[in-house]
């Protein structure tokens, strides 16, 4: 007899019990997190799960992802095979041959072929890890050649080989499946053995397969391969909001602000930790990590997981954890400098194959530092005071807000008469370089006959920087005041030249009940050109252009085409692209409040970006954001690229006006 049921059944029971117990332990740890509803919009969630998990959409965004795609689907199909296998072990007489013949043969064939695919994928993965591992697989706590990764690959390979040897021996004994061509090859190899020896080989293979399968199952919840269990749910439970928009906080006495311990994270934040496979793609695209800052988004997620593993037991009992979440960098602890290094560019969010949310966790921890500890890089003290007292980052008198209008005359927003509120933004109103962009935009709007007006000295900062920096208290005040003013003035349409104002008004203020049409100037100009309201008879003489994506316009708001279309209309040629463009665009370094901080560790993010630009030999780098403008202009000076100009798309369009 091939299978000793009396031996297998208790073994199986123990394995399942320990597996369930491990999963239960992990789930209990996830349950330490605070509540959050991730079960709304089920249709959208299911569709996303199909595309991200089953379609492996983001895994396939990189060429090597194909290998994972095959392995994933091989796994899905072999899940049935292994289910059948376990049934055979549990119930005497159970097996494929109990199914209707066509199905029986069909499945036998599929399992046989798919096992080859799985074995091939494992071989490719092994070779890649050992000989061609990309740099991002490695970092200070994980290695491509780590024992764990190699063990898992070896176990999968063993499962496949045992499967073939088992089936081969069965075929050689005349008891096998007819529709298993690959196993038949193995049968050929075993042809010389006696029936008794074949029986021994079959039994040994069966037991090898069984034991490895149960071992593999038990390894999952205790390793990074837990993603095999959690990745699909994690895709289903993904954040459907804009990644920059964090939940509001309620400012009442006795409340906690931000996150200082893992139990203040939501359960979904904690599930993220158990869904990470440590693939390293987030690390590969992070501008902070790539320029030598102490931030590694993968490490943040890993530390959240280590922290909950270390503190879970005491947290479940309602006691404080032993390992601090924020502090001296170490296992389970994120350093403050790492938190302040984030530009909130969202590259990590948009690359993660299983939709882990790195950046929101960073903002939540910043909220704690700023609001409960009043602890932040000292440059930010001025920013916060200026924002609070004069509602702009520089602390310039609000009465200066409309000065850029000098040559255009007064243009107040009149309720009921003016169509568009031009939300000038702090840079547009105060920064001498960006004021030129504001004038260009105003000229374009006038040329197209758009009815527009400004709030002048009554305009206040949108609060983007303070929110990303974690000063939610101040943001809350600014947002409430701005939304009240918009409502009082009956604003229905807003146009901004700054993607940060744009994103804040469009997405953040929705939390404050503001439902108005917010357009970035690239979108409005594109519309005006398409509607033939804006005619560009000349071609702007800006030479060869290259377009740099703003993170807050592009990645965070999915607007990639409008600025490119606008540039094409104004110059007659589509702008050149950076090597890293659109979804893969590389941040200028100024988002997330980094605009107002020194950048002393490592190299400068903007230098990395301008070097990339200079390699493409453009005459003009085109931008659509005041921060990008500053960072590109400063960077070009530093790399000796003075010959290259930086222009906002509005300036290019203004040059093409008659």
């Amino acid at each position, binding site marked *: 007899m091939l299978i000793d049921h009396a031996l297998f059944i208790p073994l199986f029971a123990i394995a399942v019990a320990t597996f369930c117990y491990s999963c239960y332990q992990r789930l209990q740890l996830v349950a330490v997190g605070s509540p959050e509803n991730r079960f709304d919009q089920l249709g959208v969630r299911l569709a996303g799960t199909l595309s991200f998990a089953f379609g492996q959409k983001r895994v396939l965004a990189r060429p090597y992802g194909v290998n994972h795609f095959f392995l994933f689907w091989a796994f899905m199909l072999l899940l049935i095979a292994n289910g059948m296998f376990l049934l055979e072990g549990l119930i005497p007489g159970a097996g494929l041959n109990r199914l209707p013949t066509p199905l029986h043969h069909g499945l036998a064939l599929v399992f046989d072929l798919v096992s080859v695919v799985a074995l091939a994928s494992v071989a490719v993965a092994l070779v890649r890890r050992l000989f061609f591992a990309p740099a991002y697989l490695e970092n200070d706590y994980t290695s491509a050649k780590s024992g764990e990764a190699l063990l898992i690959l070896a176990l999968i390979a063993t499962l496949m080989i045992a499967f073939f040897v088992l089936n081969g021996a069965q075929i050689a004994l005349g008891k096998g499946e007819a529709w298993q061509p690959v196993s038949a090859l193995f049968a050929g190899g075993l042809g010389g053995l006696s029936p008794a020896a074949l029986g021994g080989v079959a039994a040994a293979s069966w037991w090898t397969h069984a034991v490895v399968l149960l071992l593999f199952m038990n390894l999952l919840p205790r390793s990074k391969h837990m993603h095999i269990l959690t990745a699909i749910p994690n895709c289903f439970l993904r954040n459907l909001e804009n990644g920059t928009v964090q939940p509001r906080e309620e400012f009442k*006495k006795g409340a906690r602000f931000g996150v200082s311990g893992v139990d203040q994270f939501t359960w979904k934040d904690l599930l993220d930790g158990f869904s990470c496979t440590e693939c390293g793609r987030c690390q590969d695209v992070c501008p902070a990590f790539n320029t030598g800052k102490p931030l590694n988004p993968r490490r943040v997620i890993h530390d959240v997981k280590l922290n909950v593993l270390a503190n879970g037991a005491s947290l479940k009992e309602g006691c404080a954890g032993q390992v601090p979440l924020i502090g001296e960098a170490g296992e389970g602890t994120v350093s403050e400098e790492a938190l302040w290094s984030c530009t909130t560019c969202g590259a990590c969010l948009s690359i993660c194959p299983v939709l882990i949310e790195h950046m929101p966790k960073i903002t939540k921890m910043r909220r704690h530092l*700023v609001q409960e*500890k*009043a602890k932040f890089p000292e440059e930010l*003290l001025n920013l916060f*005071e200026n924002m609070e007292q004069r509602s702009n980052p520089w602390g310039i008198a609000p*009465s200066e807000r409309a000065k850029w209008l000098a040559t255009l005359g007064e243009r107040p927003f009149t309720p009921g008469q003016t169509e568009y509120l031009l939300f000038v933004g702090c840079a547009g109103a105060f920064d001498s370089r960006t004021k030129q962009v504001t004038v260009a935009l105003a000229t374009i709007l006038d040329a197209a006959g758009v009815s527009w007006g400004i709030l002048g000295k009554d305009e206040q900062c949108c609060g983007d920087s303070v929110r990303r920096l974690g000063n939610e208290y101040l943001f809350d005040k600014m947002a409430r005041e701005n939304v009240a003013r918009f409502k009082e003035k009956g604003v229905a349409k807003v146009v901004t030249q700054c993607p940060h104002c744009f994103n804040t008004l469009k997405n953040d203020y929705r939390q404050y009940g503001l439902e108005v049409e917010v357009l970035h100037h690239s979108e409005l100009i594109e519309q005006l050109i398409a509607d033939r309201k804006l005619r560009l008879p000349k071609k702007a003489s800006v030479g060869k252009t290259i377009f740099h994506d703003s993170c807050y316009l592009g990645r965070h708001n999915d607007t990639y085409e409008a600025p490119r279309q606008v540039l094409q209309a104004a110059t007659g040629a589509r702008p050149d692209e950076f090597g890293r463009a659109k979804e893969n665009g590389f941040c200028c370094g100024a988002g997330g409040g980094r605009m107002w901080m020194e950048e002393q560790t490592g190299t400068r993010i903007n230098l990395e970006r301008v070097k990339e630009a200079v390699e493409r030999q453009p005459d003009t780098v085109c931008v659509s954001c005041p921060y990008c403008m500053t960072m590109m202009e400063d960077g070009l000076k530093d790399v000796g690229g003075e010959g290259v100009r930086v222009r906002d798309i509005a300036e290019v369009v203004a040059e093409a006006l008659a």
Partner: protein
Amino acid sequence: MLVISCIKQVPDTTQVKIDPVTNTLIREGIPFIVNPYDTHALEESLRLKDTYGMRTVALSMGPPNTEVTLRKACALGIDEAILLSDRCFGGADTLATSRVLSAAIERLAKREAVGIVFCGKQTIDGDTAQVGPGIATRLGFTQLTLVDRIEHIDFLKKRIRVRRKLEGRHEIVEAPLPVMITVVRELNRPRYPSVPMRLEAEDATITVWDNRVLQLDAETVGLKGSPTWVSKIFSPQRDQGEIIGDGVHDPEGTAGLLIEKLMSKDLLAV
């Protein structure tokens, strides 16, 4: 031992305009802030609280809306905030102001010994720098002005050693407590209020002392007690400047012209 900070609510002067017709300050719609130098006075008193556990009191004389400023002080961690407010205190010059503040400090001193009174070196609206020294004089405290560092406090011998920031030099001086110290910006970096502290401060008690409490002769306070008054406020006329050279097309030549000009006015030493 008490450490007291005298703070003033001032209009944000970067936003103040002068009415060209009446020559008075247009204060309408101008936000009020804590006099910036006073924020350093508050910070230093809080540091003494953190280090030595001294009790901190913030004092401010002003109209009832000055409460906002005192709440900010509470949000930073001040133990007690007292508003000195009475119609008869209004319109005070620096002499009358220092009388009211001194009376309040004397009243506090009856409860607990006062060690240090901190004031900003001056306010950004009046710019007189007289109120601090006025308090020291009225109370008979040693006055230590323009302090940029507290070197040492000896509580047993009741002495304090501080560094004064003077034009081009520093001066280290020692004095017996109690003292009145006026502070410069270099003394410290003011802290930022945490949100829990701000929320606490929203409900903090702001004690109001009017003249029924202080019992000062009404003739010596406010407008009546003020020997100085402002007869006129005006913006000085500025001569029209001139544009020399062409900075766009000839930046080097223009820079040369500028240097010549500055030299001719003896503004650049060779």
